[in-house]
């Protein structure tokens, strides 16, 4: 800035015809007296702070409600369950602090807990050889439209599976491979009367059977699938036209809807974009169940799962045309609407669920259930709800969340001059899913909104070419949305679900009779071993079963002997009763490690291929003498 008291300033003649207009003006301003208004400067200065805030990154943290700051030792109000994308895991965050509380390995191999290494986890993972998974959509079981806190279900797009996590122990307890289809993507649960079915969409169409005799697109189809939530058996499958993207269920138990972005059935990108409208396919659960019961189904290949035909013209389904490549499908918590998000169209299509009976009875035509199609902005992907009649939709291209009012959008569609958009808020960057607290239940409480942004770009310290995602927390408790937190996350949460902390009841320590390790108990029984007390080695041919308890800071056996080439199974039962005193069992140079939490039994099998001495040690910190918690495996030469 120029100091007007500087005596060395060049003299500028404002009347000089060579001087620029700007100079003349500036100079005139400079010379002009402003004493008359100088008193106003103080007032302007006082207000100046607020002028700097709206477009700055740093300030965005300061203008929120403030109560997202959970102090040391304070607990969050919500559990948040995050899918871990192609990391294959599920994560638990506290909301609103966004502190990561736990990771639940599901389809991945986890070195810390031994998931994928232990016999218990291998039993859950089943016979499939995959070591990866791609989790997108975590959803919590419901009873009468309220989260019941029993299970969380998650899809595996990579290997066409669905997993169930028991929320009392936060461990994956069942994984089902869905036959006859490829790539389970959209997944939602029956809400009412209770979660009897897990509904899941297979995204890609394939020939059926897919046995190498047929390759054409014309003879390829995909299916909508229902899995029994208790048995985790696939109950039935429905063949559809087009492909299947996202899905959601209603609050009566009658209908489930799914988006299709490839009604063209194209295998090339351009081809998938051609149609101006694709569709939402609606499934009548009653009619499908009746068809299955009546035996109107086939089975395919080795699979015993009943497959019914829901292609166009079927009584089991209806196809509602909606604009161009729709993506998210969300049920409003009042149970009145399915909302299909336009993606390549800047609109959302609102489907009145109470018109679906008439649609299925052919009393109205295919577009009649659409009662509004509000224009929201560029690239609407997913919609979530606050329970106060407002919807929040991510706009991928605008990079915003738009808050809008559903009833006002309906009035607008009917021709009333009503403004339905309440606010647009920038998010950073490229938002995909968004999710408000309790939004998939009747109890949507409109407090917090998480927006899962696909790019973080420059929002965090750079960590090399691979960037974290950015899951942003927005306070929606007031009229105005306020961005309060940036949360970096590793590959690659697609969606999350927020549930009130009182809706989840977890066990502090394991029940030693837990079915999670029933097989270990059964084997011990056969071997005449009491898992809770015995430390012993059972030899069964070249199979050796080593049973030991652990009590911090000692293993029940500090030495055991096997022969080179033996197949060794180590069973460790943690007898500690104290919360958080988890042990680990790691056998050096054998790729063996596992978690054994209080009152849990874990087992792991390996080949003792190398003669000599091999130490094992406790890998989860347990005690002041944790380092001393060791033992030796003696492997005698064959």
């Amino acid at each position, binding site marked *: 800035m120029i100091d007007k008291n500087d005596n060395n300033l060049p003299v500028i003649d404002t009347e000089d015809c060579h001087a620029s207009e700007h*100079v003349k003006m*500036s100079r005139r301003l400079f010379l002009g007296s*402003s004493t008359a*208004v100088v008193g106003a*400067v103080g007032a302007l200065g006082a207000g100046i702070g607020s002028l700097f805030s709206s477009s700055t990154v740093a300030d965005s943290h300061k203008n929120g409600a403030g109560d997202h700051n959970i102090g040391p030792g304070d607990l969050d109000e919500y559990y948040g369950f995050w899918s871990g994308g192609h990391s294959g895991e599920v994560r638990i965050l506290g909301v609103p602090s966004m502190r990561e509380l736990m990771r639940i390995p599901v389809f991945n191999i986890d070195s810390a807990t031994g998931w994928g290494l232990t016999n218990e986890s291998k039993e859950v993972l089943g016979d499939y050889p995959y070591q990866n998974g791609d989790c997108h959509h975590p959803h919590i079981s419901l009873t009468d439209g309220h989260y019941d806190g029993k299970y969380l279900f998650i899809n595996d797009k990579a290997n066409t599976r669905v997993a169930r996590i028991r929320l009392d122990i936060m461990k994956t307890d069942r994984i089902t491979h869905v036959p006859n289809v490829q790539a389970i993507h959209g997944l939602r649960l029956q809400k009412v009367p209770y979660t009897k079915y897990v509904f899941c969409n297979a995204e890609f169409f394939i020939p059926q059977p897919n046995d190498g005799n047929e390759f054409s697109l014309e003879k390829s189809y995909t299916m909508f699938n229902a899995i029994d939530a208790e048995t985790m058996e696939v109950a039935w499958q429905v063949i559809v036209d087009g492909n299947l993207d996202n899905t959601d269920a209603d609050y009566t138990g009658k209908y489930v809807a799914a988006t299709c972005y490839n009604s063209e059935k194209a295998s090339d990108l351009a081809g998938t974009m*051609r149609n101006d409208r694709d569709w939402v396919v609606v499934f009548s659960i009653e009619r499908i169940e009746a068809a299955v019961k009546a035996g109107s189904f086939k089975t395919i290949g080795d699979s015993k799962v009943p497959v019914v035909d829901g292609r166009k013209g079927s009584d089991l389904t209806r196809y509602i045309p909606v*604009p161009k490549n729709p993506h998210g499908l969300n049920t409003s918590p009042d149970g009145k609407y399915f909302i299909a998000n336009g993606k390549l169209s800047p609109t959302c299509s609102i489907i009145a669920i109470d018109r679906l009976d008439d649609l299925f009875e052919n009393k109205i035509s295919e577009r009649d259930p659409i009662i509004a199609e509000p224009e929201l902005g560029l690239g609407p992907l997913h919609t979530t709800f606050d329970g106060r009649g407002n919807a929040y939709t991510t706009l991928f291209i605008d990079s915003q969340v738009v808050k809008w009012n559903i009833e006002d959008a309906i009035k607008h569609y009917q021709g009333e001059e009503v*403004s339905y958009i309440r606010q*647009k808020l920038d998010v950073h960057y490229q938002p995909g899913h968004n999710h408000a607290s309790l939004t998939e239940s009747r109890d949507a409480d409109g407090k917090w909104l998480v927006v899962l942004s696909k790019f973080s*770009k420059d929002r965090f310290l750079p960590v090399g070419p691979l960037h974290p995602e950015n899951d942003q927390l927005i306070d929606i408790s007031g009229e105005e949305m306020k961005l309060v937190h940036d949360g970096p996350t590793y590959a690659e949460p697609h969606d999350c679900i927020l549930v009130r902390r009182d809706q989840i009841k977890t066990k502090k320590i394991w029940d030693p009779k837990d079915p999670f390790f029933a097989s270990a108990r059964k084997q011990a029984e056969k071997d005449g071993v009491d898992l809770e007390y015995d430390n012993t080695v059972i030899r069964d041919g070249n199979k050796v079963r080593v049973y030991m308890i652990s009590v911090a800071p000692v293993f029940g056996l500090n030495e055991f002997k096997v022969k080179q080439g033996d197949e060794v199974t180590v069973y460790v039962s943690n007898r500690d009763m104290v919360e958080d005193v988890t042990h680990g069992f790691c056998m050096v140079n054998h790729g063996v490690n596992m978690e054994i939490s209080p009152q849990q039994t874990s087992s792991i099998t390996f080949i003792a291929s190398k003669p000599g001495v091999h130490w094992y040690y406790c890998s989860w910190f347990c005690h002041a003498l944790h380092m001393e918690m060791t033992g030796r495996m003696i492997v005698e030469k064959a």
Partner: protein
Amino acid sequence: MIIKKLRHFKTWQGFSFLMAAICSFISFNINAALQTNLDRLEPGESFTLPAGTISSLVLRVPNVAVSCHKNTVIDAEGHGHAVEILAEEIIFSDCQIRNWGQDLNKLDAGIFVSRQARGAVIKNNRLIGPAFGIWLDATPDVIVRNNHIHGEAKLRSQDRGNGIHLFNTSGALIEENQISETRDGIYIESANNNTIRNNLMTSLRYGVHYMYSMDNLLEKNITRGTRTGYALMQSKRLKVIDNRSEEDENYGILMNFITDSILVNNVVEGVSQGQTAGKDISGAEGKGLFVYNSLFNTFDGNYFIDNNIGIHLTAGSEDNKFKNNAFINNAHQVKYVANRIQEWSTDGVGNYWSDYLGWDMNDDAIGDVAYEPNDGIDRLLWKYPAAKLLINSPSVIMLRWVQRQFPILKSLGVKDSYPLMTLPAGLMP
């Protein structure tokens, strides 16, 4: 070309007024005869459709020229395509087309140009109807010139079709068309190496709606009164030159994931806040240019005037070259949301900023101090123009000084080290 003379049609033309009056009674027969005549054309022939109202037609013979008498109206009676072109190298011109179908599921169009119709020329037609005006269905090398396309304003915007829809085309030349009150003006998806030039697009959702299309030239187009002038998305190597956006809403030009492209000499004027039902939407401030996740582009000689926001740059839109642009009287000249500072001058040439308050002591046409558009004082001065009177007051100097000592008040942003003191030569609003 051989002009095929059909005696009975010459006679028919003589009675065109009378025939027009009674055509509804006999249009079926006339149409059947016309369709037969069209189907019997030899390649190379020309044919003029007679005056009067006729219903939908299909052009199946390649390399013919079909045009209309000045009183011909092709009326599709509310369903399907009015004109369907199914063969190569057909010239279709000078027709009035109306009342085609409104079934978006079936892509109903005034003129549907099929995949096989390579080299079609569609010119001088006047179209009024509900669904798509002209649909190019992956057709190569089509010329669409001087057509006027008007949508069905009675329909909800989302229930109308687009004016000209380029699906997966290449080598198209779309020029001198006028499009209004359709859904979007020109929609381009998965379509490469096309030229879109001199089109006028008014009262639409989006003027140019653009998805995943490479190497296209957009030149000398005008959008006016749309809900976004040019929505350019997820594409590479575009040339966007001499276009205008006038009084659009939301965005003049939106660039989302656009790379290696040039924007030269475009004028964006008066972009206003997005609205529903006449009510401003908070957070939808009108942006002259929105640059999002867009890198390696050149912005030269563009003119942004009277917008809510001149440019909004974000999502790591770095490594772009800016020079000779003018930012005039935008309420917020630059909104830059990022954590890394960007230099906005190229080889010692910056941009013109109407709110620049520095001096040019050496009179080299370059301001003596850098212009930083996110400088809080500049925003203060925009918000309270009267404060300009205080520019030399110790209080403002103090505020600026304080601001520079304590950067908490100052966001990282854009810096133009060579701000121009006057409008770049040749740049005209």
